[in-house]
Structures are given as structure tokens and as C-alpha cells.
């Protein structure tokens, strides 16, 4: 009976819905016959939205909520993946637009660049969602968990739409939805003062950045008279520089470019770990997407753009990794590594832009390809590291590296996958970080054939890439050494155990992805170049060269892997039959060793941090041994961010001092407030009439 009626009802419902919201219109009518990819893509987004909205209804049943939301979201993301690949041959077929409020058109179009940025979204987000099953374990926070799921999925959808927005109002709308939904995600533990402060800081930076982006929109509109991105290339060359710089700073505050990165090290420790993974792995890449999109849309070939981006990239990369060395909170440290990697990504983009300005197709192609591939790689290994850090924090209850230790034996899967992530992020073979950084290196070496400023900048870029790589490996030897090796420093660390499959499976998958990209780099390099296929600004890069480099990288990585296996094998063989005794780590023959004789994170990193003293503010308080019967000694040190210090003492405090003098305006007298309104009206009337 029911099934008999259903189709007609469904048909009527469909027409009703179509009448209500208006059928999405294909941007290009000629391609009307090929609506399928678009429908599948919209279906994927709808599923993700449903996956977010369902928990709000079912939050009373905690397990059901989690399974339902995660399941639907994962299927939605897989559908999204499918739609990308089914439309891959013809990205333009995946376009639609809605007239909105009779004033704007909400238009979405895709090209190869959007597709490339959709990859990390649909790859990382479902894994983070699965991981959240482990992370949200308290049933009494059920409603809050449901709300978190809701905003997570809104964030996913809005990020997917950011990559597709075809005009300024659309972009502004989805960009704001993205910023605001992520703000709510950061505020998960809103009872804590630090979380609220972090959320506020993030909100401030997100909105200030959005303001700059909108300002650049305004400048474009005032010259081109059109909201369409496609018309932006028609504005005068002299304006393009300003537009790009405005947009660069705006997107930079989202991406976490030094010195606009201040919110990152605060927001990430405050947010739940899988949210950090999404935000650091995927969301800040939307800032990079914006920068690239703006650059390509403007079609500006001024070399100063590339130089600016490259210099910001170098500074972000170097200082990011430096501050990471000085930090003891594991998530804050990872946040600084995001700044570092954004720096590397920007260096790739900057080199690409310089290549475009010089008319060098190889340099441009490899620069941008390195940038794109590092976006993908960073999203993989950074979310892996954040998930690992989250597991450690959840299981031990602390995020301070100096209170951990010996976790490799207690949480083997987390430890090993974290190690994989660490090697990847340090840019070492045979993992994926090496591949993308190599592409950036390759682009930089192309720049050496030019003279003057380009030569100088590319040389600095090469040196800083090397320094960044070295410091990153140093930093991760610190993290892995202190957190996972050695002996547990506290009772909590001693009692830590591995989480369930919901925690380990995403991490293992991500670690596997790191290795696959590292061992089979050729196809992924090709993928990165495919991401640039629709960009008309770039010349064609010799495919043979790309294939050769891919093959050589593959050979190198595999050789490296083979050597590792060989060494392990040799060790096994040589030690066979010998008696192996195991003592405590760092035992060193002491009769009563204690966990406190181990290196701490501070002491390990100190020598390097000291070297860069002008750029890092080290504050120490120390009580030394004095007299014959000394008091209890103590030592604390902290490393401060110069950008943060400058922002606090240079901007915030003077501003507060000025604003404090205006406090008398708020006197609390309602009658006088009404007086203010009247005065305002009178002034406006006077201005209008005189």
C-alpha cells in the first residue's frame, strides 16, 4: 500500500521542492545533458549536511548519534570523491547557480584547481569523523557532541563550496560560513577561560582577514563593475598589486602566515584533536587556495607578487619551526609546524609566481606543483600528527611533552604512526614530505639561472628550505624522543593504553597514505600538475621531464626503504642466537635511575633555540643552589613569539590605553544613551541637508 502511493507523493514533493527553492540552473546550457556529476556532488553535500543535522535530533542516544553521524558523513565524503573522479575529464560540467534575493547570483564552477583542493577535504574529514568516535567518549556531553558534529559538517560543506565559488558574493558567503562554523568548533570546551580566549582570538583574526578580502573584492568591483571572478583580470595592472596584497594578507590570516599566525597556536590546543586535524590539515589550506585563486584570476605577472609571497613564505617557514622548537605543549608545537609548512607551501607558490613573471614554464610549473602537492601532503601528515597527539592527550590527560615519555611501548600504533608523520613532516624519504619539498627545491634551483634579485631570493629560499628541513627533523626528534621514547615521567603516562580501532584505523590509513605517496611519487606529481591543467597563465611543462623526476624520486625513495629493511634484516641476522638482555631506558648503570634524569624538551632544544636568540624571546626564572643548606630549586623557561609580543605590546595595549580614555561614554544612564541617538540623528540630518 505504502509503496504504491509513494512514487506519486514523491513526485509531487519533488515538484514542490523545485518550485520552492528553484531548480539549480546549469551555468552552461549546452552541457545540460550532463547533469549527473553535479547531482552527485550536490547529493554528497546534502548527505554531509544530513549527517551533521541528524545528531541534533538523536543526541539522547549517544552511541547511535555517533555511529549515524560518522556513517552518513563518511558515505557523503566518499560520494563526493566519486563525483570528483566522475567529472574529472570535464570539470566545467560540474557547475550550477542560484539567483539569490534577486540581487546576487550564487554561482559555483569547478576547475582542476578546485578539484585538487577538494581532495584533502574529502580525504581527511571522514577520517577525522571516524576518529571523533574515540575522542568523544563521554555520554554526558551528548548534546555538545551533537552540536560539534553539526558544525563540523557545515564546515566540510562550506569548505567544499569555497573551492567552487565563482563570484564574490558567493565566495564571501561560504567563506564566512566556514570561519564561523570553525569558530564554534574551537569553542567546544567553552567553560575553560583559555578556550574562550583562544576562540575570541581566532574569531578576531578570521574576521579581520575576511575584512581585508572583502576590501579587495571592493577594489576589484570598483574597477571592473562586476562581481564575477572571471572579470577581475580586466582591472588595470597598477591596481592588481594592491588587490593582491590585500587579499594575500586576508587569506594569510586564515592560512597562518607569519605574523598573522597568532591565533593558530592558541586555537589548536583549545579545540578537540580531530577538529585541529581538520582545521590545520584542511581549513587553513583554504587560505592558500584563496591566494592561488586570486593570483590566477587576476592574471598579474608582476614579479613583485612572487617576491612578496616568497619572502613571507621564508619567514613563516623559518620562524614557525623555530617557535615549534621552543614549545612544550604538543598541540601548540604542531600548530607552529603548520605555520612552517604553510611557509614551505608559500615558497612553492612564490617560486611559481616568479617563474611566471620570468616566463619560465618549468620553474612556474614545478613551483606551483610543489605548492599543491605539499598542500595535499601536509593535510595528510599534519592531521595524522594531530590525531596522534590527541590520542596521547586523551590517554594521559596532559599535553605537556615533559610530563610524558615511554609511550612507544604503551601505545605502539599511535607511536609508530606518529613516527611516520614525523619523518614525513621533516621532509625525509621515503615518505611524502620529501616528494613535495623536492619539487619546491627543484623550482628554486631553476631560479639560479637568473640574475640579481631573483638569484638572491632563490638562493635564500634554497638555504632556508634546508634549514627548515633540518630544524623540523630536530624538532621531531625532540617530540618523538621525549614523548614516545625513554621512561614515563609521570604516573599518568605510565598507565596510558592504546585506544580502540576508531582511533587507530584513521591513523594507520593516514600513515599508509604518507608511505604510498612517498613510494609512488610519479602519479601524485602528475596529479599535482593535473591540478594546474586549467590554469591558462602557466605554460606547458615538458611531460617527459615530469615523468623523469617522478621516476628518479620513486627510485630514491624505494632505495631508501630497501636500505632501511636491509639494515633491520642485518640486525636481526647478526643478533640471532645472541643473548639479549633488556634494562630500563636511560638506565646507564645507575643503581637507582629515575625518570627525571632524562633529557627534557627544553634542555634538548635549548642549544638551537639559543642560536636564534634575536628572533625568539626566552624568559627564564631560576632559583639556584645557594649556601650550605640550599632551598628547593626551581627552573622555568618559556619561549615567546615575537609576533605575538609585538601584537600585544605594540597594538593591543596602546589601543586599550586609548579606548580606556573613552570609557566615560559608557556611563550607564539610559536617558543619556537616548540623547546620543538624538544627537546622531541630528548630525546625520545636518550633514544631509547642509
Amino acid at each position, binding site marked *: 500500500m505504502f509503496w504504491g502511493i509513494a512514487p506519486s507523493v514523491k513526485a509531487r514533493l519533488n515538484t514542490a521542492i523545485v518550485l520552492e527553492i528553484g531548480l539549480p540552473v546549469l551555468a552552461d546550457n549546452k552541457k545540460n545533458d550532463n547533469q549527473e556529476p553535479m547531482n552527485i556532488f550536490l547529493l554528497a553535500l546534502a548527505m554531509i549536511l544530513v549527517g551533521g543535522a541528524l545528531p541534533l535530533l538523536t543526541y539522547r542516544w549517544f552511541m547511535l548519534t555517533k555511529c549515524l553521524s560518522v556513517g552518513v558523513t563518511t558515505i557523503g565524503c566518499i560520494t563526493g570523491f566519486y563525483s570528483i573522479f566522475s567529472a574529472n575529464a570535464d570539470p566545467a560540467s560540474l557547475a550550477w547557480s542560484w539567483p539569490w534575493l534577486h540581487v546576487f547570483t550564487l554561482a559555483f564552477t569547478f576547475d582542476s584547481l578546485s578539484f585538487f583542493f577538494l581532495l584533502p577535504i574529502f580525504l581527511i574529514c571522514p577520517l577525522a569523523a571516524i576518529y571523533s568516535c574515540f575522542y568523544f567518549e563521554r555520554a554526558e556531553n551528548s548534546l555538545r557532541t551533537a552540536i560539534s558534529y553539526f558544525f563540523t559538517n557545515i564546515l566540510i560543506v562550506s569548505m567544499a563550496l569555497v573551492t567552487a565559488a565563482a563570484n564574490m558574493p558567493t565566495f564571501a558567503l561560504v567563506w564566512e560560513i566556514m570561519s564561523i562554523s570553525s569558530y564554534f568548533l574551537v569553542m567546544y570546551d567553552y567553560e575553560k577561560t583559555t578556550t574562550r580566549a583562544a576562540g575570541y582570538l581566532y574569531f578576531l583574526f578570521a574576521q579581520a582577514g575576511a575584512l581585508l578580502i572583502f576590501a579587495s573584492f571592493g577594489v576589484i568591483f570598483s574597477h571592473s563593475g562586476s562581481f564575477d571572478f572571471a572579470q577581475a583580470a580586466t582591472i588595470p595592472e597598477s591596481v592588481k598589486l594592491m588587490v593582491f596584497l590585500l587579499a594575500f594578507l586576508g587569506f594569510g590570516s586564515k592560512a597562518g602566515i607569519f605574523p598573522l599566525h597568532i591565533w593558530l597556536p592558541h586555537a589548536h590546543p583549545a579545540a578537540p584533536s580531530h577538529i585541529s586535524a581538520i582545521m590545520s590539515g584542511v581549513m587553513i589550506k583554504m587560505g592558500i587556495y584563496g591566494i592561488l585563486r586570486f593570483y590566477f584570476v587576476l592574471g598579474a605577472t608582476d614579479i613583485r607578487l612572487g617576491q612578496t609571497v616568497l619572502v613571507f613564505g621564508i619567514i613563516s617557514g623559518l620562524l614557525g619551526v623555530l617557535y615549534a622548537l621552543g614549545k612544550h605543549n604538543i598541540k601548540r608545537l604542531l600548530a607552529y609546524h603548520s605555520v612552517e609548512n604553510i611557509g614551505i607551501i608559500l615558497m612553492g607558490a612564490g617560486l611559481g609566481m616568479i617563474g611566471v613573471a620570468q616566463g619560465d614554464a618549468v620553474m612556474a610549473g614545478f613551483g606551483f606543483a610543489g605548492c599543491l602537492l605539499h598542500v595535499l601532503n601536509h593535510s595528510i601528515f599534519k592531521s595524522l600528527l594531530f590525531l596522534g597527539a590527541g590520542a596521547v592527550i586523551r590517554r594521559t590527560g596532559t599535553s605537556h611533552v615533559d610530563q610524558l615519555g615511554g609511550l612507544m611501548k604503551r601505545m605502539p600504533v599511535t607511536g609508530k604512526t606518529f613516527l611516520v608523520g614525523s619523518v614525513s613532516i621533516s621532509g625525509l624519504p621515503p615518505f611524502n614530505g620529501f616528494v613535495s619539498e623536492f619539487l619546491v627545491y627543484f623550482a628554486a634551483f631553476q631560479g639560479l639561472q637568473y640574475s640579481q634579485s631573483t638569484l638572491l631570493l632563490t638562493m635564500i629560499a634554497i638555504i632556508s628550505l634546508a634549514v627548515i628541513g633540518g630544524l623540523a627533523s630536530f624538532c621531531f626528534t625532540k617530540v618523538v624522543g621525549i614523548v614516545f621514547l625513554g621512561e614515563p615521567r609521570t604516573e599518568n603516562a605510565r598507565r596510558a593504553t592504546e585506544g580502540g580501532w576508531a582511533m587507530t584505523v584513521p591513523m594507520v590509513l593516514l600513515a599508509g597514505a604518507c608511505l604510498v605517496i612517498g613510494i609512488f611519487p610519479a602519479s601524485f606529481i602528475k596529479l599535482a600538475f593535473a591540478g594546474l591543467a586549467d590554469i591558462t597563465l602557466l605554460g606547458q611543462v615538458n611531460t617527459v621531464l615530469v615523468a623523469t623526476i617522478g621516476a628518479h624520486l620513486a627510485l630514491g625513495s624505494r632505495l631508501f626503504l630497501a636500505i632501511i629493511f636491509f639494515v633491520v634484516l642485518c640486525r636481526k641476522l647478526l643478533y640471532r642466537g645472541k643473548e639479549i638482555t633488556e634494562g630500563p631506558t636511560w638506565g646507564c648503570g645507575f643503581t637507582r635511575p629515575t625518570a627525571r634524569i632524562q633529557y627534557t624538551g627544553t634542555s634538548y632544544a635549548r642549544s638551537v633555540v639559543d642560536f636564534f636568540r634575536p628572533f625568539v624571546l626566552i624568559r627564564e626564572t631560576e632559583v639556584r643552589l645557594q649556601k650550605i643548606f640550599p632551598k628547593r630549586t626551581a627552573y622555568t623557561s618559556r619561549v615567546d613569539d615575537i609576533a605575538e609580543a609585538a601584537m600585544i605590546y605594540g597594538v593591543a595595549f596602546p589601543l586599550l590605553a586609548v579606548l580606556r580614555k573613552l570609557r566615560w561614554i*559608557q*556611563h*550607564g*544612564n*539610559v*536617558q*543619556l544613551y*537616548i*540623547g546620543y*541617538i*538624538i544627537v546622531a540623528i541630528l548630525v546625520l540630518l545636518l550633514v544631509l*541637508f547642509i
Partner: protein
Amino acid sequence: MKNINDMIMVVILLSVLLSLASSRLITLIKIMAVQGFLVSLLPLLLEHHSSMGSGGLIFFQVMILTKGILIPVLLYVALKRIAIQREIEPIIGYHASLFAGLIIILLSVFITDRLHLAVPSGQELILTTAITTMSAGFFLMMGRKKAITQVIGYLMLENGIFLIGTALIKHFHTVYMVEFGLLLDLLVGVMVMGIILHNINHAFDDIDTDLLNRLKD
């Protein structure tokens, strides 16, 4: 017809003056009921509104019900609930207020002259009345201390805005968007003030808005 309009406007002006001069809250509420009733009655009697459809008629009936009965009743209930015994302690005295009201009328005539708005013929006086009502509402809000008087001032201000809308509209229209928005605004305003009244009363045992000073940072 025109005479009735003029009479209504005169009564509205008188009600404004009376509200400025009255010290008892209960009287104020009564005045507001009369004023609200007259203000929503006025558009029905205008000549060019004679072709109004049934939707418009219903709308203005709702308007009369809300402004003339619902809101005054709400205010009355609030007054009874908080049981204030004392009369208003004005910031500006009653005689001064009355005098200010007269000056406001003169000023609004002057402003109406200067504005040169394209008002349909026979409706120039509405604009004067409207500006007077608005300004008097503002004056009431500034010159009195009790929260309930603030609400009444706010109501008067909205009445004035409504009148301006009536005066400027040349032709009959089917969508009473602006008017309806105003009505909603008013209701919400009264509700919010009711809650605030209740809370101030609860917290301080009085409804002087001066006590709100303590709430600032």
C-alpha cells in the same frame, strides 16, 4: 471626511501634550491606548485609502486591536504586577515638559516646511503630527526615569514612525510590510521591557532605570 481627519490629528496632538504633563502612570497608559487607537484608525479614513481591500482592512483591525488594547493591557498588567505606588520622579518637570511639547510642535511645523517632502495633498498635517509624536516620544524617554515610562515613550516614537509611513504613502498598497514590521517591533519591545521591568524590580525592589547604572562594566 477631512474634518474627521483633522479632528483625529488634533486629538493625537492633545494626547501627546497630555502624556507629557501627566504624572500618573495609569493615566499615561490610558492615553497611550487612545493614541494607539487613533493612530491606527487614521489610515482608514484617508481619502486615497478608500479603495482598500479586505486584507488591508483586516490588517488595520489587527493594528487597532494590538495598539489600542493588547499593548495597553500588557502594560497595565506589568504595572499591577510590579505594584508601584510612587508617582514618576521626572528628570524634567511636568510644566517644563509641557512647554517643551509646545516648542516641539512649533519645531515640527518648521521642519515639515523645510523638508519639502512630496506629501499628497491634505496630508501635510499628518507629517507635522508624526514628527511631533516622534520627538515627544524621544523626549519622554529622555526625561523620565521609570522603565515603564521609557516603554511608553518608545511606543509613542513608534506611533510617530507609523504616522510618517501613512503620510508618505501615496497609493494604496497590498503588502503592509513596513507597518507589520513596526507592529512586531513594538510587541517585542514591550515584551523585552516587561522582562527587564520584572528583573529590575526583582533585583532592586524598584524600577528606576538609574539602577541600571550598576550594570555597566
